[in-house]
């Protein structure tokens, strides 16, 4: 069975080599097929930026990384809320909300499940003034968005010294074409 699997992989890979690679090393592939066996165990995970860093208490950061997303809300929402309320004066009153009109419980309920919501139907952005959480583009100023939602209050006007890090763009321009990221320094 294992042999059959390997043969099918080699076949699939050699098709690829034949179809789209400039270096036709089919034979090398056949002779030196890689070993992909074994079980890989989770070490780290991430959906939205900075969630583990900001909202998870130090002693729980490793545990957060090995809790599957569908179980994160039950395990971590109350910790997120405690840490949010300790961090930000913008949630000091029971009826305080952020600019998404989410109170501390609702906002942390959203964040505790650390997945990135992505639209397949159009604009993909963390927040562009109109669209909210439809993806994450390279140029999105995600930290300022998060700081505004944490510290900025209902209309982004509260705690101005804490709600913008005043770094709004990358240190190199992104590319309009694949692979989109700038070349290394």
């Amino acid at each position, binding site marked *: 069975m294992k042999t059959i699997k390997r043969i099918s992989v080699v076949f699939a890979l050699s098709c*690829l080599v034949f179809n789209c690679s400039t270096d036709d090393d089919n034979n090398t592939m056949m002779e030196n097929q890689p070993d992909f066996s074994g079980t890989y165990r989770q070490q780290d995970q*991430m959906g939205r930026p900075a969630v583990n860093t900001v909202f998870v208490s130090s002693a729980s950061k490793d545990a957060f990384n090995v809790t599957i997303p569908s179980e994160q809300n039950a395990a971590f929402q109350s910790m997120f809320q405690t840490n949010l309320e300790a961090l930000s004066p913008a949630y000091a009153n029971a009826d305080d909300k952020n600019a998404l009109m989410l109170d501390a419980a609702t906002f942390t309920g959203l964040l505790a499940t650390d997945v990135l919501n992505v639209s397949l139907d159009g604009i993909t952005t963390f927040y562009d003034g109109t669209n909210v959480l439809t993806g994450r583009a390279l140029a999105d100023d995600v930290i300022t968005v998060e700081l505004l939602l944490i510290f900025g209050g209902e209309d982004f006007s509260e705690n101005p010294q804490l709600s913008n*890090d005043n*770094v709004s763009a990358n240190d190199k321009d992104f590319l309009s074409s694949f692979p989109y990221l700038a070349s290394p*320094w």
Partner: protein
Amino acid sequence: MKNLKKVLGIGVVAAASFFIVAADHIDAPAVQGGSSDITDFYAFQGENTNNLVFVANVQGLISPSASADAVFDESVLVEINIDTNGDNVEDLVIQAIPRDGKMYFFGPVAPSQTGLNSTIATTAVNTGWVDITAYGEAAVTETNTMGMTFFAGPRDDPFFMDFAQYSAIIGGTANGFNDPGADTFAGTNVMSIVVEVPKSMIGGSGTINTWVESKKK
């Protein structure tokens, strides 16, 4: 000027490594600074709007002088998880694993099991590989017959934040951010995996939930 920036970049790396760092860089004790430390994850519409692009970065704060020696770890699987029905459980995965100078990709494919443990989906119909781009070399990309495009190698860290000042605020030694701020990640590199995939292979329309995992053998 460039040299000065490089020198400054290295200084920043040294300073930043004392702190718990940012987007997901050095986020937790078990992974920080290691080969499985995820630094960032992006998902956005491609230049061809029929496609979605996933970017998974690992091993943050690599200085230019260390970038030529930076490598992907062959014992670390990077797995992009895609939930297409809103239950926050992965319905599809795209796996990336390096072997001997190449990054191999399997999926989008339904995983044999969901959750914390994975085996590599070597029987997946959708597969591909790309030579890992060397530092200083032009980006090497491959596109497979299904219309997926692949890249793996060092890139500029696309993340930007005045993390040093954030740490000072959290640490109680500053009352607010500076204007202008200073990008703690300026002049540093990451090891990057980029996959562009036709939207039709990951649900077609509507909203997906996605996250990235690093898994070690």
